[in-house]
């Protein structure tokens, strides 16, 4: 047994180091629990927006941040392209919400410019760090601030799901990162 002890200890220590390395006290580290969804109110450039204001419409909710050069644009471009495939009547019954998981840097104005690029009707939302954390937690979105040497400053790790909420405000489906347009369209139509 003694002979094998180092082989057991080394991975255990490595694991402990890895855990400590990732652990940033005070940061909203939230690993996805069972998502409940539900109503919320956050700030847009045009004032507060509540999920219940959108009742009757399908809402696509994506959690991301505007310094994100690749993952968020991929998902928002996919959603934007899917919206173009809807009939005008279907289109009126869909809302897209981009919730910032970087509320310290993303102002409502910055979010409005960012979302307009993908679709003019997309709504950018933010709030206090605590408000955003609470909403993200309920939807099962996880994110965390990570210190880095990058010129960007801190980075934000984040899950890349799109939550589809039906016309009655219930969490209906969860789409993966870079979901194909047909999958997005299918979810919108099923959740209507």
């Amino acid at each position, binding site marked *: 047994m003694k002979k094998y002890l180092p082989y057991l200890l080394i991975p255990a220590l490595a694991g402990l180091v890895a855990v400590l390395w990732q652990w940033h006290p005070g940061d909203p580290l939230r690993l996805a629990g069972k998502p409940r969804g539900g109503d919320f109110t956050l700030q847009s450039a045009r004032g507060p927006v509540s999920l219940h204001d959108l009742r009757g419409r399908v809402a696509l909710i994506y959690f991301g941040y505007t310094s994100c050069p690749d993952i968020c644009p991929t998902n928002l471009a996919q959603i934007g*392209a899917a919206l173009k495939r809807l009939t005008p009547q279907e289109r009126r019954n869909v809302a897209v919400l981009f919730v910032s998981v970087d509320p310290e840097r993303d102002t409502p104005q910055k979010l409005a410019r960012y979302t307009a690029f993908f679709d003019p009707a997309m709504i950018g939302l933010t709030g206090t760090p605590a408000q955003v954390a609470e909403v993200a937690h309920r939807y099962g979105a996880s994110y965390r601030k990570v210190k880095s040497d990058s010129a960007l400053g801190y980075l934000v790790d984040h*899950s890349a799901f799109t939550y589809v909420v039906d016309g009655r405000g219930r969490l209906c489906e969860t789409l993966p990162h870079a979901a194909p347009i047909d999958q997005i369209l299918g979810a919108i139509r099923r959740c209507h």
Partner: protein
Amino acid sequence: MFPTRSLILTLAATLTCTQALADAAGDVQVTTPYARQVPPGAVASAAFMELNNRGHEDHALVAAASPAAEVVELHEHVMKDGMMQMRPVPRIGIPAGATTRLQPGGYHVMLIHLRQDLASGQTVPLTLTFEDGSKKAVEAPVRRIGAMTKKMH
């Protein structure tokens, strides 16, 4: 006999060295470079490309520069703990005879603090620096990415 053998060895060594003199900039072919069009006012964008090492030695991309951004870094994306993690990387390996892809969701040249908005039709000049110190200039057209009907991974 001995000097001849030595001569052959020297010759062989010289030949090997000549082979080794081929630098990364010569060995690595860059195909389909492009920079991602991002929303106006966005702080950062990413450039993608394929790096095809046609030489006999391993190479690595270690830095990039561009007049389009104040800072240029090499980054990768890793899906971990259910989260997309973007991290700076010191090098991107390009093994001999292999192709390394810089593509959405993976490695990218990160353009930080863009000096101006990247508009479709523009080109972003990039200078790639390889581990052996050689450099290569690349012109990356700005492309608006969207509309994938199929899964890209």
